[in-house]
């Protein structure tokens, strides 16, 4: 496994993603969700909203990295708030 060159940061990143996925799956089995229309232009399921949230977060981080010197905790905080809003009202 040494060729994969794990670091603590990336390991915790993937653990968090895996944990989110596991929670979502568990939640989905307990309380199956139906498609609904929120503030997004298309009707979405819970999983769709999670995916949209994660993908847009990635882009926000890239924008911050590429075009400002600000600390990465700012976009991180922004994205967590955005993800929660999206899951709740999206």
């Amino acid at each position, binding site marked *: 496994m040494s*060729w*994969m060159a794990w670091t603590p940061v990336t390991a915790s990143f993937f653990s968090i993603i895996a944990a989110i996925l596991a929670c979502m*799956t568990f939640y*989905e*089995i307990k309380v199956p969700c139906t498609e609904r229309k929120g503030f997004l232009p298309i009707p979405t*399921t819970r*999983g*769709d909203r999670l*995916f949209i949230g994660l993908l847009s977060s990635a882009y926000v981080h890239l924008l911050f990295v590429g075009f400002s010197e600000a600390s990465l905790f700012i976009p991180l905080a922004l994205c967590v708030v955005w993800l929660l809003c999206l899951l709740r009202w999206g």
Partner: protein
Amino acid sequence: MNHSKRKSFGMSLFILFILIPIYWLLNMSFKHNEEILGGLSLWPQDFTFDNYITIFTDPSWYMGYVNSMTYVAMNMVITLLVALPAAYAFSRYKFVGDKHLFFWLLSNRMAPPAVFLLPFFQLYSSVGLFDTHIAVALAHCLFSVPLAVWILEGFMSGVPREIDETAYIDGYSFPRFFIRIFIPMISSGIGVTAFFSFMFSWVELLLARTLTSVEAKPIAAIMTRTVTASGIDWGVLAAAGVLTIIPGVLVVYFVRNHVAKGFALGRV
């Protein structure tokens, strides 16, 4: 009448546009290098098979074809074996995460091979599969399996559910039903899927070249050998190119009536 004449005229033009570059390659493969470089001639003045003889008598050349064929065949078999049940599941059942799984599969088809180049190289080296046919086949599966699932799902959705149910009532078990009844019903879909796995794996070069060095080197990579210090051996290069076109033409001949539907992923 005038209208249909115009149509066939346009069609002939397009076919000509497709065939002329190929003809030029064919033309060149029957010429000596002196004739190729000496001046332009529309057909070989001094017809020769020397370029083909060079390829068929040198194992380092013809083994390239054998290697390519080997991993293409492996890829086709693996792809069909895993994609058939999965496509059946997608076309018949709803299950937790089905849509996301489907999209995830497809996103792999869309990812550029260049992205996976580096980790594939490391991954297959670390498990000792570097420079084997199976490594290339597995790497190609990443791209052919999603497409296969997509195509087969389209074809399977066209088969009514009632057939499954009738078979179960008649006492068929799932595997028996699947092999005896279901697979024959979508045989054209399977043919088309095999064609697509073949096509992808056969034309791909970047991954095949990176994951092999000697033992499993594909013909496409060997073709770069014709570039030597004394210039390019155009005749042999052209002959090798012609030989790579032939398997494709044979395969397309067999599935000609299903190709179009397959390209539409069974969704017409």
